């Protein structure tokens, strides 16, 4: 359907390529500095602040925003919502790329990345929440890779491999939901061990539940947001089914996101009640907590429901961007803003420009990989030789 030659004949100096090229070049320089000079050369990390932007953004936001894969495949294959079928492949692809990039980013952040398999092959620290996170992320990356292979197999013509994996769809989906439940929540559990460092408004015994429920919001919202972006830039790659089902996906996922956000709002309020932390709301941190809770949870919940009621696609799309931003605000708050709140401002952390540059580099690599894959592989359309009959 799309020939490599056609692509090569086009000019490579598109605005996207130029900007992406510059970011990737800068990223490569930072990479060299990081691996030959150590973390101190490129980061503002310190003994008080061992985790910075690369954990707060690349790991915590990265994993949450890649939740679309398990949310969509569960909706379609387990809950039987076949009308969202065309959303599965793009969501799986984003999930796979997201997790691959999380692992890439971690290899910059940890001191000796070549030892990342150690917990599984040398010595297992099973009392650590991080062990669970690591094991689940690793296994889920594998599951996402397998779930992604049918698209690549169709492109490459590996018919038998493709058919084998398609038969495993149910097992893979259930495995994906289990692993996602576990590690999405465990990313929150990581902070359970530090009640003396995380502000009480964000520290809660429910933090794993908060992280898991908000990951569903992130997944649903990312599918909507990403769908509108791909429609804008890759409409020529979409087949009729995809274009026809697109609106169903926006309304269906928008409605679901509204309900889940309402539930999330309720448990967040219950979290404050449980620990009787109401008095903190009158402090500066309390004001910021209210901004998060009202501006990035209650507001998108309301806007989603209005959008669905009025069948206003544009509103739902903008709301999805707000909801995604809200998840990022939450993860930043837990990991960076409300963490170490007891320290004087001179000891607090703010990322260096090179940390920000490397995070941009990672995102750019992801966007470029997504662009390449949807251009060549049957992601936004069904391969003519493998059409499946579905309602």
């Amino acid at each position: 359907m799309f020939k490599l030659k056609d692509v090569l004949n086009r000019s490579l100096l598109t605005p996207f390529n130029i900007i992406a090229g510059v970011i990737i070049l800068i990223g490569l320089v930072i990479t060299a500095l990081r691996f030959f000079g150590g973390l101190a050369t490129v980061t503002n990390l310190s003994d008080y602040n061992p985790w910075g932007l690369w954990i707060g953004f690349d790991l915590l936001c990265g994993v949450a925003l890649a939740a679309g894969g398990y949310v969509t495949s569960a909706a379609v294959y387990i809950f039987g919502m076949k009308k969202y079928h065309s959303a599965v492949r793009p969501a799986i692809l984003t999930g796979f790329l997201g997790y691959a990039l999380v692992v890439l980013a971690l290899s910059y952040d940890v001191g000796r990345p070549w030892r990342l398999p150690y917990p599984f092959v040398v010595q297992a620290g099973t009392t650590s929440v991080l062990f669970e996170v690591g094991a689940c992320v690793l296994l889920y990356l594998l599951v996402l890779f397998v779930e992604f292979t049918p698209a690549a197999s169709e492109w490459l013509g590996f018919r038998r491999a493709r058919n084998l994996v398609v038969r495993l769809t149910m097992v893979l989906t259930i495995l994906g939901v289990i692993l996602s439940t576990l590690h999405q929540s465990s990313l929150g559990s990581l902070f359970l061990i530090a009640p003396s460092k995380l502000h009480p408004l964000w520290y809660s015994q429910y933090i794993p539940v908060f992280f898991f429920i908000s990951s569903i919001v992130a997944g649903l919202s990312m599918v909507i947001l990403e769908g509108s972006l791909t429609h804008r830039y890759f409409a020529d790659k979409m087949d009729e089914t995809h274009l026809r089902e697109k609106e169903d996906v926006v309304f269906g996922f928008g409605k679901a996101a509204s309900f889940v956000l309402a539930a999330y709002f309720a448990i967040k309020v219950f979290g404050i009640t449980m620990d009787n932390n109401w008095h903190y709301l009158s402090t500066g941190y309390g004001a910021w907590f209210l901004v998060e809770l009202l501006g990035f949870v209650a507001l998108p919940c309301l806007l989603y429901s209005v959008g669905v009621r009025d069948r206003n696609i544009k509103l739902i799309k903008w709301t999805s961007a707000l909801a995604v931003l809200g998840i990022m605000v939450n993860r930043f708050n837990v990991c960076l803003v409300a963490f170490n709140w007891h320290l004087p401002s001179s000891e607090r952390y703010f990322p260096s420009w090179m940390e920000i540059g490397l995070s941009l580099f990672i995102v750019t690599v992801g966007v470029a990989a997504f662009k390449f894959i949807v251009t060549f592989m049957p992601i936004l359309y069904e391969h003519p030789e493998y059409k499946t009959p579905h309602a």
Partner: protein
Amino acid sequence: MSISRRGFLAWMGAAGITALSARAGATPRHFEGYPQSLCVLHDITLCIGCRSCEAGCNKVNELPAPAVPFTDLTVLDKKRRTNAKAYTVVNKFTSPGGNPIFVKNQCNHCLEPACASACFVRAFSKNGDGSVTYDSSVCVGCRYCMIACPFEIPTYEYDEPFTPRIMKCTLCHPRITKGLLPGCVEACPTEALSFGTREDMLKLARERINKYPGRYVDHIYGEHEMGGTNWLYLSGVPFRTLGMREDLGITPAPDLTSGALATVPMVAALWPALLTGIYAISKRREKMLSGDKQDAIAKAVAEANAKSQAALTAALDKAKKEKEDSVKKAVKAALEQSAQKTQAQ
């Protein structure tokens, strides 16, 4: 927490039953430290801020020479923390009466250490002698131990590109196993640091409080903090005024995450059942819907067939009748014709 129990739990974890290895948070059991484990008692009221302990520590641990010599006491004017080149630091505070108070800071060697609980390669060990030691040969460098430590002790070699290590006090584990004193205790010119078993140090601390009630606050820091530590402190002023947190609670760090880890096997076991159930329901609904559809089609086809059959029969009947009629008519006409013919003749 015996060693064999730990080994067993690690095996359980390796078998994939991760959360079972986290000690059930609800058990009332309280670990009071290994019997005869060693401990330092730091009597803050006796510390003169000479930094000899810092020098002794630096020497026995073969740490790099400091930028400012240990004899320079002006560094005390600024609050410091442990770092990759110093396992211990002394800080100066001022009493309500205006007198200087000096406090030594280093790893407290928790009875149930947060760092060891948080480490996903078990790089930390809580040893029988009370020390908490670190093995850089397995460390990945994730720095979760630094997040976990409530006393903000572990430090990291951020400027080391290839072999960065976590750096922290070892209670001079290599020396105390040989019967020697920790470097800092040996260097201390006053009685500010005492060394012995934890039971003895607790007894000593209580004796001092009882003997000089006006001199000390009635609190042995480290007896219960975070479940207890192998480093104890006595002070004449509340510890919170000396940068030592009194809001840490008495829950050992591993208990903070054991509940969350305990849900792992629940999710792993129950989700497949739940999800397969939901799948079965949605599949059945789909089947029923498609079944209804097929029934409706069959019914419609049957009705149409019956209708057309009836129409056909009616048409045939009609045709038959018409044929009969026309035959009758023809016969009648023929008869009439023959009758007319007969008449005419």
